[in-house]
C-alpha cells in the first residue's frame, strides 16, 4: 500500500518536472505556406539572357534585383566621357557700356562637356577701363590687360540634351595689370593751395579672386547657343601700392563689387557623336522609365 503511494507521488513529481521542462523549451511555430509563394517568377520579354539564366537557376530574387538595376540604367541616357567642346564669347560688357559702364572685359572660353555633367572651363580675356567722372577729381585709366580663369561647371540637366543646360560653377581668376591716375586736382582751401595737381602713371598690380556662379545655356540654332551667368565673386588678394589701390581689375570688375552678370554666345563642337544616345532612343527611355515605375 505504502509502496503504491510512493509510486504515485513519484509519478506526479515526474509529470510536473516534464511539464516544466517542456515549458522552458521554445515552442515550435509552424507557418503555413501559401501556394502562390511557390510560383516560379518568369522574366518579362526582352530581358537580358544573363538575367534569364538567373531566373532559370532558381535565384529569382537576385535576378529581380539585377533587372531593376538594368531598368534604372536604361532610364538615364549616358553621354560619352568627351561629349562636346563649347567655345564661348562673353559680350556682356559691350551691352553694359551702352548703359554707361566705364570699363569692359571681353573673353573667350573653352568648355569641355564630360558625360554631359562635369565641364572643365578655361577662360582667357582682356579688360580695360577709362573713367573721367564729372564729380570726381581724377581720370582713371586701366591699360588693356590680360586675365585668366580656370574652373568647372556641373550641369544639373545631365539627363537632357546638352543643348539645354542649367549649371553651377566655380572659377579661380588671375590678372596682372597696370593703371594710371591722371589729371588729379586737389583743393586745399585752408592753406590756399587751390587745384594742386599730380599724375600717377603705370602703377603695376595683380589680383587673385574666386567666383561662384549659376548659369543657363540654351541652344538657339544649329550648334549656336546663348548663355547667361550670375556670379558672386570675391577678391582673395590684390597688390596695393604706396600710391593707391586699383579701382578696376580686368576680368573681375570694380574692386568693391560682389556680383556680376555675364552673357555669352557659344559654338559647340560635338565629340564622340556616334556614342550619344540617339534621339529615337528617347521613346525607349521613356518606356523603360514607365516600366520601371510600374514595377516599383
Amino acid at each position: 500500500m505504502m509502496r503504491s503511494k510512493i509510486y504515485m507521488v513519484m509519478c506526479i513529481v515526474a509529470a510536473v518536472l516534464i511539464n516544466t521542462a517542456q515549458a522552458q523549451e521554445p515552442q515550435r511555430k509552424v507557418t503555413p505556406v501559401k501556394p502562390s509563394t511557390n510560383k516560379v517568377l518568369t522574366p518579362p520579354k526582352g530581358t537580358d539572357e544573363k538575367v534569364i539564366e538567373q531566373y532559370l537557376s532558381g535565384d529569382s530574387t537576385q535576378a529581380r534585383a539585377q533587372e531593376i538595376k538594368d531598368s534604372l540604367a536604361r532610364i538615364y541616357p549616358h553621354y560619352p566621357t568627351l561629349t562636346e567642346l563649347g567655345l564661348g564669347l562673353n559680350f556682356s560688357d559691350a551691352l553694359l557700356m551702352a548703359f554707361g559702364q566705364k570699363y569692359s572685359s571681353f573673353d573667350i572660353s573653352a568648355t569641355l562637356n564630360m558625360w554631359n555633367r562635369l565641364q572643365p572651363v578655361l577662360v582667357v580675356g582682356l579688360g580695360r577701363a577709362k573713367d573721367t567722372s564729372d564729380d570726381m577729381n581724377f581720370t582713371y585709366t586701366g591699360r588693356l590687360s590680360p586675365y585668366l580663369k580656370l574652373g568647372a561647371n556641373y550641369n544639373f540637366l545631365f539627363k537632357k540634351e546638352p543643348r539645354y543646360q542649367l549649371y553651377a560653377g566655380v572659377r579661380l581668376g588671375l590678372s596682372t595689370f597696370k593703371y594710371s591716375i591722371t589729371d588729379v586736382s586737389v583743393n586745399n582751401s585752408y592753406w590756399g593751395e587751390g587745384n594742386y595737381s599730380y599724375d600717377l602713371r603705370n602703377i603695376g598690380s595683380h589680383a587673385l579672386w574666386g567666383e561662384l556662379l549659376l548659369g543657363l545655356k540654351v541652344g538657339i540654332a544649329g550648334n549656336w547657343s546663348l548663355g547667361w551667368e550670375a556670379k558672386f565673386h570675391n577678391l582673395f588678394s590684390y597688390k596695393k601700392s604706396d600710391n593707391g589701390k586699383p579701382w578696376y581689375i580686368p576680368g573681375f570688375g570694380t574692386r568693391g563689387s560682389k556680383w556680376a552678370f555675364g552673357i555669352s554666345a557659344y559654338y559647340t563642337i560635338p565629340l564622340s557623336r556616334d556614342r550619344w544616345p540617339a534621339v529615337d532612343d528617347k521613346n525607349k527611355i521613356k518606356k523603360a522609365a514607365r516600366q520601371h515605375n510600374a514595377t516599383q
Partner: protein
Amino acid sequence: MKKKTKQVVLIALSALAGLATSCNNGNCPGNSNAIPLAEFYQDGSSVIINNLTVYGIGAPGDSLILDEASASSVYMPLHISTGNCCYVLDYNTEGLEADTIKLEYDAIPYFESHECGAMFNFRITGIEYTLNAIDSIAITRTLINNDDVASIKIYMQ
C-alpha cells in the same frame, strides 16, 4: 528663334539693364581728404577745452580753424607743398599764453578709391610744441589718411 527663347533673352536683357542702372557708386566710407584729427586729454580722459581759438600760421586771410569755441578735438589741415606747418592754440584766458604746435611730414599722392577720389596722404616725421598749457603730445598714427580717427593726442596740464 523659338518664342520661349525670345522671352528668355528679353528677360535677361531687362535684368541686365536693371543691374547696370543699380550698380552706382556708393559714398566714400571715410573723409574725402586726409586731415589729422587731434583730441584733447587731461588726467587720462577726454576733455573739452572752452573758449579755444585755433589757426595755422601763414594761412591766407588769417583764417581760423576754431574761433573761441568749446572743443574736445580739432582737425588740423596740412600744407601740401611746404612739408611742415604751425598751429596756434589760443586759450583766450588771462595769464595763460597760447601754445604753438609744429608738424613736419611727407606728402604722399594717393588714390583711395573711385568713390573717395585722389588725395594726399601724409606721414608725420616730427613734432615740436610749447608747454604753456600742453603737458605732452603723442602721435598715435604716423600715417594720416582719410580714416575718420584721431591721430594726435594732446595731453593738457
